[in-house]
């Protein structure tokens, strides 16, 4: 009945928490600077002579690799360190409401960061005549990708009260999610394993599933993949918290 009110209250508090400290602003600035740097300098946006945002989206898995765990690392470790977890979980709130609320708040924050990249969309439309459908698909994929990383960060942050450990663990897991389908790695793998095995491993990678979005394809399988990563990681967060409470 009031699970929605509870989630809303938690989302509000978490978002307020970001903006009450300089963290949010520092993060937004760094995110936008890095996104610009990758797009224009590393991705040679202008030199491509192409009216598309390929050079923008293609770097997102790497850009998020460090930035998303930085946002998610405090989710549960901070609650444990401050002892507020005891407060939160003795309120008439279920564990999953707390998990979903905290996750949703950080995801909204990342969505805001991503929305602030709108000048690249304006730029590419100003300079040429891009396929805006492809761009929208790219954004959808990008936010799903951020959600998947964030759910992983939520899981690792439930494991420890130390934010640094939580950060490093989630970077490692996300790095695996990238490398399993990163071409230089799959190329290397295919020399020692059969193509079928390489394909199975690559199926676990965010790269494999993010690629379609960049081409403007909204494939149900890709959406299901990201949704399952998020679902699985949040479920595991719940299991970890339950086990900790059981002692």
């Amino acid at each position, binding site marked *: 009945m009031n699970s929605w009110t509870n989630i809303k209250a938690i989302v509000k508090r978490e978002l307020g928490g970001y903006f009450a400290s300089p963290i949010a602003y520092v993060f937004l600035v760094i995110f936008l600077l890095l996104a610009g740097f990758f797009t224009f300098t590393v991705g040679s946006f202008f030199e491509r002579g192409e009216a598309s945002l390929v050079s923008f989206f293609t770097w997102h898995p790497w850009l998020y690799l460090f930035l998303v765990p930085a946002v998610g690392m405090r989710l549960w470790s901070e609650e444990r360190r401050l002892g*507020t977890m005891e407060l939160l979980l003795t309120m*008439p709130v279920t564990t999953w409401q707390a998990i979903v609320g905290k996750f949703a708040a950080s995801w909204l924050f990342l969505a805001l960061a991503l929305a602030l990249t709108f000048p690249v969309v304006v730029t590419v439309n100003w300079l040429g005549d891009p396929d805006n459908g492809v761009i929208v698909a790219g954004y959808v994929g990008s936010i799903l990708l951020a959600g998947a990383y964030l759910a992983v960060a939520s899981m690792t942050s439930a494991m420890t009260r130390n934010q640094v450990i939580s950060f490093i663990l989630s970077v490692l897991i996300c790095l695996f999610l990238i490398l399993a389908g990163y071409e230089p790695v799959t190329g290397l793998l295919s020399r020692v394993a059969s193509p079928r095995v390489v394909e199975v491993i690559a199926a676990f990678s965010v790269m494999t599933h993010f690629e379609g979005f960049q081409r403007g394809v909204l494939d149900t399988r890709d959406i299901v993949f990201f949704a399952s990563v998020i679902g699985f990681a949040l479920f595991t967060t719940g299991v970890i918290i339950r086990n900790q409470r059981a002692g």
Partner: protein
Amino acid sequence: MIKVENLVKAFGPKLAVNDISFTVERGEVLGFLGPNGAGKSTTMRMITGFIPPTSGRITVGGHDMLEDPLPAKRLIGYLPENAPGYADMTVHGFLNFAAELRGLQGEARKQAVGRAVEQCFLQNVLYQTIDTLSKGYKHRTGLAQSLIHDPEVLIMDEPTDGLDPNQKHEVRGLIKHMGENKAIIFSTHILEEVEAACTRVIIIDRGRIVANGTPAELKARSPEGRLEDVFRAITLPDTVKGH
């Protein structure tokens, strides 16, 4: 209101709480006494539903804490040990958040926050963030949070810890006053506090209840009529406790 039956909590091979049973009715203020590590906080954490017991049953207002936790939790106001609070929130924001999770909206929420602020004398720090508060104010913020929904059951882990003598006196008065129509459990190390505010005392040692009675009954056990003598006679000092 609170019924605890054969509560056991094991952390690995160690029994933190070993077969504890008691009840607290409305109008009772139960003082939890015991040496450090006796199992007071663990018991309170189980009653409030933060950690599940290894075995045993807890009912609050007739609702089973394990099978139907939300209705049970709604009845409880809880002040955890060290009065944790979100460091980056203001006192006002924090109390509003607590009120919201307690299902209070709009005007009712405003009133509830106003009342808790008044009860705990927080007017001066209302818009300060919690990490800038002194220990006493931080503690009172935690207390205000536990009172926000005027709960029928109040559970407080060392509610007067870190307060100055005046504040201690105020909080004891508050507990005693609220105890008239609530069921209250609070833990403390301060024996005079028990005499000042409790209608009943339970002394816990190494996870077991070693005494249960009114302050007067317990005092009668000592020839000099002092609670401290009773406490020291029935609990073992930390130094002897090692395995």
